[in-house]
């Protein structure tokens, strides 16, 4: 007894996608079943109506082609676009992807304004901090410097006894050289020599890092200035770069000698039996005195310097970001 064909079978039969075995069985059934034949015919008619029906036309005037702007701003993983055809530039995968970021769609002016504002906020906060530390009864770095000087004096007072022993200048010089190489270490040593409250320590470290930050800011600015000289705005960046570069140059000159002096007097104190070191300590003393003043100066506005450095960094970062990002 044949069962009637299912609608699935009938539909598949129309599209000729019924498996061979099922097709044979279906054919046999259709030959003997008028109802299924009628059903198949009705279905065929439906499909014909459906396939004959026109596709819904696009609304009048509608066009889905992408405007040139969208085509240009879209990332393409291949850079092999033929240049000669002249209808589009070679795609810039990184730039285009970055350009799709919402921040980058903002006009350059608002970005510049935002950057300047951010820099100003950092600067103002830093200056306020600096002001507060200046108001403190004892300036942070000053005692350290004085103490350093005093220590050097002690060293000197011990030095004369050893002075005739040997003028070992080369060794002293190499000590000074290595001192230059390891500024950070020495700054720490200077702090421990001073044995002042933590603030002294901090002040030294801060002025050191401020100088470092400025150096970095300078080099960053140089980079951004060099990267984009054609832009009118880059003149501004250039002058700023010069400024920070100048500052970056000035600060290390100011700060390190103080560290050096402190370090060397530290050595003098520790290795009191060593003749060469005593001489070294004695020799260094005038430098330490000379540098005490700059050290105090660079120590006092340390937080201000840091703020300035951070502010400049922020601003320069934004400028670099502005100039280095893809245009168009």
């Amino acid at each position, binding site marked *: 007894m044949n069962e009637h*064909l*299912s*609608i699935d079978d009938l539909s598949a039969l129309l599209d000729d996608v019924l498996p061979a075995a099922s097709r044979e069985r279906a054919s046999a059934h259709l030959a003997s079943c008028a109802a299924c034949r009628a059903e198949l015919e009705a279905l065929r008619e439906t499909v014909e109506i459906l396939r004959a029906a026109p596709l*819904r036309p696009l609304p009048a005037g509608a066009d*889905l082609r992408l405007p*040139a702007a969208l085509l240009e701003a879209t990332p393409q993983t291949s850079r092999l*676009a033929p240049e000669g055809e002249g209808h589009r530039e070679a795609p810039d995968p990184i730039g285009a992807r970055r350009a799709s970021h919402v921040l980058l769609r903002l006009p350059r002016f608002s970005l510049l304004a935002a950057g300047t504002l951010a820099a100003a906020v950092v600067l103002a906060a830093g200056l306020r901090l600096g002001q507060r530390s200046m108001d403190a009864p004892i300036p942070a770095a000053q005692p350290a410097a004085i103490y350093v000087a005093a220590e050097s004096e002690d060293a000197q007072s011990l030095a004369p006894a050893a002075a005739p022993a040997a003028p070992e200048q080369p060794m002293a010089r190499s000590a000074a050289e290595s001192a230059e190489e390891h500024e950070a270490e020495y700054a720490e040593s200077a702090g421990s020599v001073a044995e002042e409250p933590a603030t002294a320590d901090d002040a030294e470290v801060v002025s050191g890092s401020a100088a470092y930050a400025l150096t970095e800011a300078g080099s960053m600015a140089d980079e951004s200035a060099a990267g984009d000289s054609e832009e009118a705005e880059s003149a501004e960046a250039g002058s700023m770069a010069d400024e920070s570069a100048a500052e970056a140059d000035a600060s290390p000159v100011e700060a390190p000698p103080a560290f050096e002096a402190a370090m060397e007097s530290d050595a003098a104190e520790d290795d009191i039996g060593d003749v060469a070191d005593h001489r070294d300590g004695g020799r260094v003393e005038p430098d330490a005195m000379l540098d005490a003043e700059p050290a105090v100066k660079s120590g006092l506005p340390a937080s201000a310097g840091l703020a300035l450095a951070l502010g400049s960094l922020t601003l320069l970062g934004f400028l670099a970001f502005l100039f280095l990002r893809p245009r168009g």
Partner: protein
Amino acid sequence: MTKDTTVEQWIAAARKGDGDAFNRLVEHYQGLAFHVAWQQIRNSDEAMDACQEAMLSAWRAMPRFEGNATGFRSWLMRIVVNASRDRWRYEHRRPRASLEVERDGETYVLPVPAPGPSPQDVAEQAELGGRLEEALATLSPDHRAVVLLDQAGFAYAEIAQTLGIEVGTVKSRMSRARAHLRQRLRPVPAMEAEPAPSAERSG
């Protein structure tokens, strides 16, 4: 009808970033794309928006496409179907217009009917000899998608690829959709015996 080889040349160029070539492809397939989108959403404006989104997505994904002209048609229509579904779901989940009323610190959202055919759509529907359209409108979007791709000349395998379903699922949806349409378009003569297991009675 543009030859597949021409389409494949456009595909190759578009993959390398040729925007003009991509727009040729858009031009070639936009009728089908709109038809597919419209059948899913049944609102011209929404369908156009969905198509535009889909074309942009396709352009962005173009370098990753691998295949021939037939594969491209399925791939593109799949993007269109997905964009249409997203839009359809979005529009049916949220009120079309913002009718939020704030009173006593509480926000009330007034229910707004989901978008149906616009008056223009209704007019066109009547013009196209609305019985088929009317019948199609009563299908679920899933069933309608299968039918309309068949209408556009897609093979079962292509439909499966386009909709991301199994060929077996295509077959069953196709037969149920057809049975439903058949009943709508041509009521079963009363005296004829019904073929046994059929989904048409449920419609």
